[in-house]
C-alpha cells in the first residue's frame, strides 16, 4: 500500500512536470531567441546564442518603435481600465437595489453586453469613430474599451454591493454625507477585492487585445504593442531577434504582474470565466 502511494505521487509529479515543461520550454526559447543574431538562428537553431545580442533590445526600442507602442499600451490600458472599473462600480451601486423593476432591467441590459461579438460591432464602430473624428487618436481605443469593460464589471460588482449591509450606507446618510460621498468614501473602499478582480480581468484583455487596435488604430503612432509588433513583421520579416525582443518587452509587464499576484489573477479570471 505504501509503495503504491509512493508510485502514485511519483507519477503525479512526473505528469505535472511534463505539462509544466510544455508551457515553459516554448516561452524560454522566445527569451533565448530574443538574444540571437540572425546567423545564430540558422547556425544553432535550438542552442544558446553564440554571443548574447543585447543589441536586439536597443533596436526594438528604437527601430521597431517599441518605445511608442509601449507608451500607447500603457496609456490606453491604464485609462480605459480605471475609467471602466470606476463607471462599473458607479453603475453597480446605482443598481444595488435590484428589486426596482427599472434597476433589474438595466442590470440585464448591461450584462447582456457580454454576448456582443466584437467582430459584429467593429465595423460600425469604425464608421462611428470616423464621424466623431476620433480615428487616429488613442480615444478610438479608449472609448470602446471603456464600454466593453462595463458588462463584466457590472456582473462582478453588483452582487458584491448587494451583499453589503445596508447599515453601512445608512450610517453615512445619518452623518449627512451625500450619496456620492457615501459611494466614494464608504462603498468603494470595502469593494476593493472585487475591484481588483475587475481590473485584472479587463486589464489583461485590454493589454493583449489585437483585433480592435488592428482595425481602429489607423495611424502608426497610435498603435498598441501587439499591432505594432505585427506591423513591424510585415515590413522587416527577417529581423527575427528584434521581433522576439519586442515580444518579450510586450509580454513582460503582464507576466511579472501575474507572478507577483498569481493567486488574485487565477481567482479573478476564473470568476469572470465561470460567470461569463
Amino acid at each position, binding site marked *: 500500500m505504501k509503495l503504491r502511494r509512493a508510485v502514485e505521487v511519483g507519477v503525479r509529479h512526473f505528469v505535472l512536470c511534463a505539462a509544466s515543461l510544455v*508551457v515553459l520550454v516554448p516561452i524560454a526559447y522566445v527569451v533565448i531567441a530574443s538574444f540571437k543574431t540572425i546567423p545564430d538562428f540558422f547556425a544553432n537553431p535550438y542552442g544558446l546564442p553564440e554571443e548574447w545580442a543585447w543589441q536586439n533590445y536597443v533596436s526594438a526600442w528604437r527601430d521597431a518603435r517599441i518605445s511608442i507602442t509601449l507608451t500607447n499600451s500603457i496609456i490606453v490600458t491604464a485609462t480605459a481600465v480605471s475609467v471602466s472599473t470606476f463607471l462599473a462600480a458607479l453603475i453597480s451601486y446605482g443598481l444595488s437595489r435590484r428589486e426596482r423593476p427599472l434597476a433589474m432591467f438595466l442590470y440585464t441590459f448591461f450584462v447582456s453586453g457580454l454576448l456582443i461579438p466584437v467582430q*459584429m460591432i467593429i465595423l460600425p464602430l469604425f464608421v462611428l469613430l470616423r464621424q466623431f473624428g476620433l480615428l487616429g487618436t488613442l480615444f478610438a481605443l479608449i472609448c470602446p474599451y471603456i464600454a466593453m469593460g462595463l458588462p463584466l464589471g457590472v456582473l462582478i460588482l453588483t452582487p458584491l454591493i448587494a451583499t453589503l449591509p445596508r447599515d453601512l450606507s445608512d450610517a453615512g446618510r445619518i452623518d449627512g454625507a451625500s450619496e456620492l460621498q457615501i459611494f466614494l468614501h464608504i462603498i468603494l473602499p470595502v469593494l476593493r477585492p472585487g475591484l481588483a478582480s475587475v481590473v485584472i480581468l479587463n486589464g489583461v484583455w485590454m493589454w*493583449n487585445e489585437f483585433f480592435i487596435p488592428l482595425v481602429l488604430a489607423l495611424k502608426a503612432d497610435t498603435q498598441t504593442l501587439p499591432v505594432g509588433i505585427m506591423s513591424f513583421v510585415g515590413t522587416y520579416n527577417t529581423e527575427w531577434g528584434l521581433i522576439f525582443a519586442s515580444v518579450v518587452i510586450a509580454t513582460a509587464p503582464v507576466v511579472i504582474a501575474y507572478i507577483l499576484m498569481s493567486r488574485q489573477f487565477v481567482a479573478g479570471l476564473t470568476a469572470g470565466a465561470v460567470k461569463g
Partner: protein
Amino acid sequence: MTALQRRLRQYGHLWFTLPGLVFFSVFLVYPMLTAFRLSVVDWNGLGNESRFVGLDNFREALTSVTFYRAAWHNIVIFLAILVVQHTIGLFLAVQLNARPRFMEVYRTILFLPVILSLVATGFIWTLILSPNIGILNPFLSDIGLGFLAQPWLNDITWALPSVIVVQAWNHLGWAIVIYMSGLQNVPRELREAAQIDGANGWQRFWNVTFPLLSPAFTSLTVITFIQNIRVFDVVYVLTGPIGSPAGRTDVLGTLVYRMAFGAAGVTSADIRFSYAIAIAVLIFIFMLICSTGLLYGLRRREVEA
C-alpha cells in the same frame, strides 16, 4: 419636500448608472444596432451611397463555399480544443486537486499561457514551427527523426492541426482552473462512501466525481465554443489574413476581416463592407443559438452534490 424632489430621491441611486450608460449605449449598443442596419445594404465602407438590398448579403454568404469552409474550420478547431480541454485539462486538474507538493507553482505555470496575448503565443509557436527559423524540424533531424519534419504551417495537411495545437496551448489553463474549482465542490464524504462500497479509483471518478463536475463541464464547453467561434488572432499571426496555405486555415474571423479591410491577394474592388457585416451578424446569430442550445442541453444533465 416637493413631489419632484421625492421622486429624484427615490430614484437617486439610478442616476449613478448614467455616465456608464452613455459609454455603453454609444460605443456598444448603437454599433450593434448599426450592424443590423448595414447588413441589409450594399456599401463599400466609404461615402454614403448605400442601396437597400434586403437579405441579399445573407443569401450570398449562405450559398458561398468560402463561408462554409471557414465555418467548418471554426467547428473543427472548437471540437478539437473541446476534446483537449475535457481530457488533458480535466486530468491535470485532478492531479493538482490531489494537492501535491508545489501545487501552487504547478498551477501558476500551467495557467501562465492564458495571460499571454495570442499575438505573443503566435510568435512563440512561429519560433517552433516555422520552416525558416523553427526549432522543431532541426531538432527532429538531429535526434534521427528527420523524416517527421514538416513545413508545419505551410503544409496543406498540417496547417490546421498546428493552429489547433497553438490555440489549445494558450487555452488549456482555463480548463484546469475551471475544473479545479469544480473539484473543490465534490464532497470528500461521497468519494469515501463509494470507496467503502468497494468502488475502485476509476469507478469512483466516473460514477461519483465526474457527474458532480457537470456544471464545470457546461461552463467550459460554452466558453470554449464562444472563444473558438471568434478565433482570429492566432490564425492571423500564424497563417495570415487569407488563411494560408490555400485557405486551409481560413476561419470566419479572418473572412470578415478580409472582406472589410482587404489583404494581400484581395483587391480593393473585392472589399465589401456590408457583406462583411452580414457575415458577422450570421456569426452572432449562430453563436447565440448554439450557446443557448448548449447551455440548455448541458444544464439538464447537471446534478447537485
